[in-house]
Each structure stands twice: as structure tokens, then as C-alpha cells.
């Protein structure tokens, strides 16, 4: 009987440890990028609804382009600060066949659409209603941005508000490749 009680206790502890490890954000992508191993962008073929209607799109539909993938929400203040930067980067990237791709997360579509209008964003944003697309990038905070090269590999990650230097890197990549 004591053996059974110990086994049961061990199972409960194992469950707690499993829960803690699976609930914390995955940083595998960051480690690979730091080692210059450049992982393929996860869930690239997953179709998400386009914000404001217009069907569904996936990251793989932009294959061959340099993409700045930006996770954002209308309630996130740093997202509001970086929105003009991203819009400027969009016009620079467009010249070299690149683009910014926004993905909203934990945000009502009406609020997201108001945000797009307020900041005059011209790039496409997708809606990740379940949050599973964002989680596959280890995203649990906003904003977070990923530079994806023409081969569909992540070459730079910013977990937090982006700056000009980060976007210049993306534009330089689009220019050089």
C-alpha cells in the first residue's frame, strides 16, 4: 500500500513538472538562430483568415520573398509604437519583393481593424484566433517579430519592440538576396 501511495504521488509530481515545462514558451527557434542554424518558419503552410475579410492566407504563399512576420494586438502599447516603423519598412521592402506580414493574437477583429485604419497599415495581417500559430513561434508576449529569408528560414528574432536596426537588417537581406 505505501508503494502504491508513493507511485500515485510521483505521478502527480510528474504531471506538475510536465505542465510547467509545456506551458512555458519554447525558445528552440531563438537557440537555433543564435547558432546560425536558421530553422524553417514553423506552420508556414497553415492558412489563417485575413484580417478584414478576403479569405485565408498562409506564410508559404509568400515563398521566395523576405518576410518580416510581426505578431501584434491593438491593446499592446509597444505595437502602437512600432506600427509606423513597420509601415515604413513595408514600403522599403516592397521595392525588393519583400513584405511585412502581421498576425494578430488575442485581439477582437474590430479592434484590430481600427488599429490598421489608425496607423494606415498597408501590409496584410492575418488573424490567429486560437493562438496556436503564435505559440509555434514561442510567442507569448507582444510584440514579437521574425525575419524570414527567401528560403523560408528564420534569420532574426525580436522578442519585444523592434527598432530601425532590426528592420534595416531585413531590408538589407531583401536587397542582397
Amino acid at each position, binding site marked *: *500500500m505505501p508503494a*502504491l*501511495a508513493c507511485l*500515485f504521488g510521483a505521478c*502527480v509530481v510528474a*504531471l506538475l513538472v*510536465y*505542465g510547467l515545462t*509545456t*506551458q512555458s514558451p519554447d525558445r528552440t527557434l531563438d537557440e537555433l538562430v543564435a547558432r546560425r542554424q536558421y530553422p524553417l518558419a514553423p506552420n508556414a503552410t497553415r492558412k489563417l483568415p485575413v484580417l478584414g475579410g478576403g479569405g485565408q492566407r498562409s506564410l508559404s504563399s509568400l515563398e521566395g520573398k523576405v518576410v518580416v512576420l510581426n505578431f501584434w*494586438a491593438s*491593446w*499592446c*502599447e*509597444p505595437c502602437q509604437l512600432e506600427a509606423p516603423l513597420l509601415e515604413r519598412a513595408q514600403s522599403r521592402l516592397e521595392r525588393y519583393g519583400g513584405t511585412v506580414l502581421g498576425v494578430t*493574437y*488575442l*485581439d*477582437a*477583429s*474590430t*479592434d484590430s481593424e481600427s488599429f490598421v485604419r489608425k496607423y494606415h497599415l498597408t501590409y496584410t495581417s492575418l488573424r*490567429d*484566433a*486560437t*493562438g496556436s500559430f503564435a505559440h509555434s513561434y514561442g510567442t*507569448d*508576449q*507582444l510584440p514579437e517579430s521574425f525575419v524570414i529569408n527567401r528560403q523560408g528560414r528564420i534569420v532574426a528574432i525580436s522578442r*519585444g519592440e523592434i527598432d530601425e536596426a532590426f528592420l534595416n537588417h531585413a531590408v538589407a537581406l531583401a536587397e542582397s538576396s
Partner: protein
Amino acid sequence: MRAPRKSLATAAAAALIAAAALIALPASQAAAGVTPRTTLPIIQRQVMCVTCKIPLEVAESPQANLERAYIQGLINQGMGEAEIKRNLVAQYGPTVLAMPSTHGFDLAVYLVPLAVVLALIATVLALLPGWRRHARERAAALTSSRSLSPADADRLDSDLARFD
């Protein structure tokens, strides 16, 4: 989520807008002649403020007010509880629901208490025969310790016979 540094003015403005929406929406609902099938407090108890990660009914933030205004809008359209919750999940994702989902690791929330209760019942069932046996043995020992030896029984009989 990264803690937003809202200025007091922005927060107050957002609260005012949400409050105005809450006041204005029931009026428009009455004008539209839609009978509400639920109330804001009922829904608030069942959902979370997605940015503050606390139940909406206790959350005080601009985003919580926006969520309340959104829910009130759905109530005013005549939606029921289940429909509103489906709509909220479609907008904010499954984390908006206060109750954990019945999939993946969240299932443990329901299964672990059940397993604990079953383990306790199994333990009691396993120990019960032993407890009963011990109780019987103790009772038997007590009875035997109280029984008289033949000599004492004879003496008691003779004593009692003297009173006859």
C-alpha cells in the same frame, strides 16, 4: 504580455468610452426591440480578461472595458450564453474562457481530482477488511479477558447459592 504603460489620461478615456458604450447599447437594444437572453454579470463570471489574465468580473483595465462593451454588444443582439462564448473564442481564442478546455494538458484539471477521489476510495476499500479483522480480534480478546476461570465460576455459584 508585457505590462503596458498606459498614461492615466488614456486609461480614463478608454474607461469613459467603454462606460458610454455600456450605457448607450442597452438603449439601442430597446430601440431594436431585441429581448436579451443573458446578462453581462453572468457572462463576466465565465470569461477572462485576455490581457490581464484574471476573471473579467474583477478586471479593471481599458482592455477589460473593451471586452465588456463587446460582450454587451452581443447580448444586445439577442445572443445566448453559448453563442456569446463561441463568439468570444472566435475573437480572442480559447484562453478567454475561465473554465479550462477539455483537451490536452488542461484535461488534467478534471482528471486529477477524479483520480485522487478514486485513489482514496481504493485505499479505504483496501484497508477496510484489515480494520474489521483488527476490531473483531480486539473484541474477542476483550471478551476472553472478561470470562471467569472454572475455579472462580465455582466460587461464584456457591456464593450465589447461599443467597437462594
